[in-house]
């Protein structure tokens, strides 16, 4: 049974403040020292597969590149703070968005998998399973019924039948 969550969801300003505090505390880590001169970008909302707001992802930027992130949970606490694995020594290779690719690119990649009789939804940024397993979700429809879930990440795409949750018995 799906429960109702009546807790107010934190605002962008609130999560940005929490993220700013978090990056101060980790900047003594040798591989996160660059956080001291980094800036925070626009928070991105991460949703559950059913579309409910789940948590915020705040980009940690150096110039226009995103090398790190802060995950702020729905109760306003910082769930995780760290860096992406993309070439840590070379910021110019980092992505320009905390989602790896933007919605437009996700839509373009998903469109290559769409059959003639299928319609595709707009991409929605979700976590497939536990927090951290983030991807763009494109739902396809055939004759008005949800058919497939196509997940698009910066590396690859994968899919399964629409409505089928991640098998948590396997990892």
């Amino acid at each position: 049974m799906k429960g109702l969550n009546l807790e107010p969801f934190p605002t962008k300003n609130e999560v940005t403040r929490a993220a700013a505090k978090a990056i101060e505390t980790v900047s003594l880590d040798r591989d996160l020292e660059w956080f001291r001169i980094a800036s925070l970008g626009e928070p991105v909302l991460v949703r559950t597969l059913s579309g409910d707001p789940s948590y915020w992802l705040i980009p940690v930027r150096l110039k226009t590149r995103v090398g790190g992130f802060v995950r702020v949970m729905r109760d306003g606490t910082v769930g995780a703070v760290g860096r992406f694995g993309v070439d840590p020594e070379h910021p110019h290779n980092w992505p320009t968005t905390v989602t790896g690719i933007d919605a437009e690119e996700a839509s373009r990649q998903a469109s290559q998998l769409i059959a003639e009789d299928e319609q595709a939804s707009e991409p929605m940024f979700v976590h497939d399973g536990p927090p951290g397993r983030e991807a763009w979700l494109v739902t396809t429809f055939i004759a008005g019924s949800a058919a497939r879930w196509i997940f698009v990440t910066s590396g690859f795409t994968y899919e399964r039948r629409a409505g089928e949750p991640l098998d948590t018995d396997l990892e």
Partner: protein
Amino acid sequence: MSSKRSTRSEFGEPVEPTAARQHAVLAVRRVWAGGIPDFEEWGFANVDTEPLIIHDLNGARLFYDFNVKVKKRIVGVVRASADKAVGSPVISLQLGPHRWSVDDATEGAMKEVERSGARTDATETSLVCYCYPKIAVRAGGANTEAGPASMLFDVSDLKPVERYGADEMEGVSSYSFLDEVAIPEGSLRRSRWEAAESDLEASRDAVSEDLDKGTAPATLQPKLAPRPYHRLIPFYSSNTVKFAPRCNAPEVFRLYAQQTNVYCAVATGQMILDFYKYHFDQPTIAAAMGTGAYGTSNTGQVNGYESLSNNGLDATYDNTAAWSEAKAEIDANRPLKSGIPGHARACAGWKRQNITLIGQPPKRWLKIYDPWPWNANICNGGAVYWEDWDSVNHTNFIYVRHA
């Protein structure tokens, strides 16, 4: 928020080396007083008065690198800001000396300039941050046809930096940190600097002349470290897995991305097996773990660790994961697999808040090497982060130990 773009005249404000050094000294004492691992010597170390000056690509001074010494031995380098527009007065604290030599890099750069056919003037060299954090030697010279010119050579490998300037494509060029990163965010960065100045003032009041002496750690430490209950407690405790516990190895554990969407346990296994010097590619590990189209079972993971090591490793599945168990593994210098619903990651560090408000539990974190986001190139994906223990549902650990 104002939409007005900040300009250099508003925010570029040079910092004298003596003022920068005061921030460097405070940072040196703070990491020691806070009980940060590997910085134990920094309480009685001295900060050099003459810094190495690193310029911005626009010619202004950007950083001062101060050597931190115990007697004559360099135990580290503090990189301080030479311009308030940078925002943070101290950028980094490095253990050990620079991995490159200014003299060698300068000499090498001059030879490269000579080889290029330019007439060189040996007095015209400087260090330049051309694409943070990369440093180059800027060698001044004059080409007989083109006239005066300067060339940049990376200090680590002396490769020429050929494309620089604002009109080059982003990503392949170098750039001015001050003009393109700091100054456009001038308001924010100036407020950071002001906060740091206030902090320095407050510390000066608290510790007076002791701060720069470097000879009285017993009296200095209690003044800088948080002190509830009138006894010294570091604000955080932490530990990470180390390849070489006797050395300050900069990379203690290696992150690999998962090569497919169902290879999280496989990539985690690759990280842990690599740590123990059992090197396999992900398809081999997947075969040993019995990975299928939807992922890997925990039994398969246990079997994989043991079979790939010819039973040299013993893997134990624990479905009642507790933070203290992860801590115990890390303290024994062993990385472990951390399972959350439907996902596997490697864990190679812990951190705990020692001081909290009454009634609040202390925060606890694990250092997670997450193979997601996935990528065919295992060196180009994944994420490393400190994860609040209470923010996710921990379903299991797998401990991997020498049999």
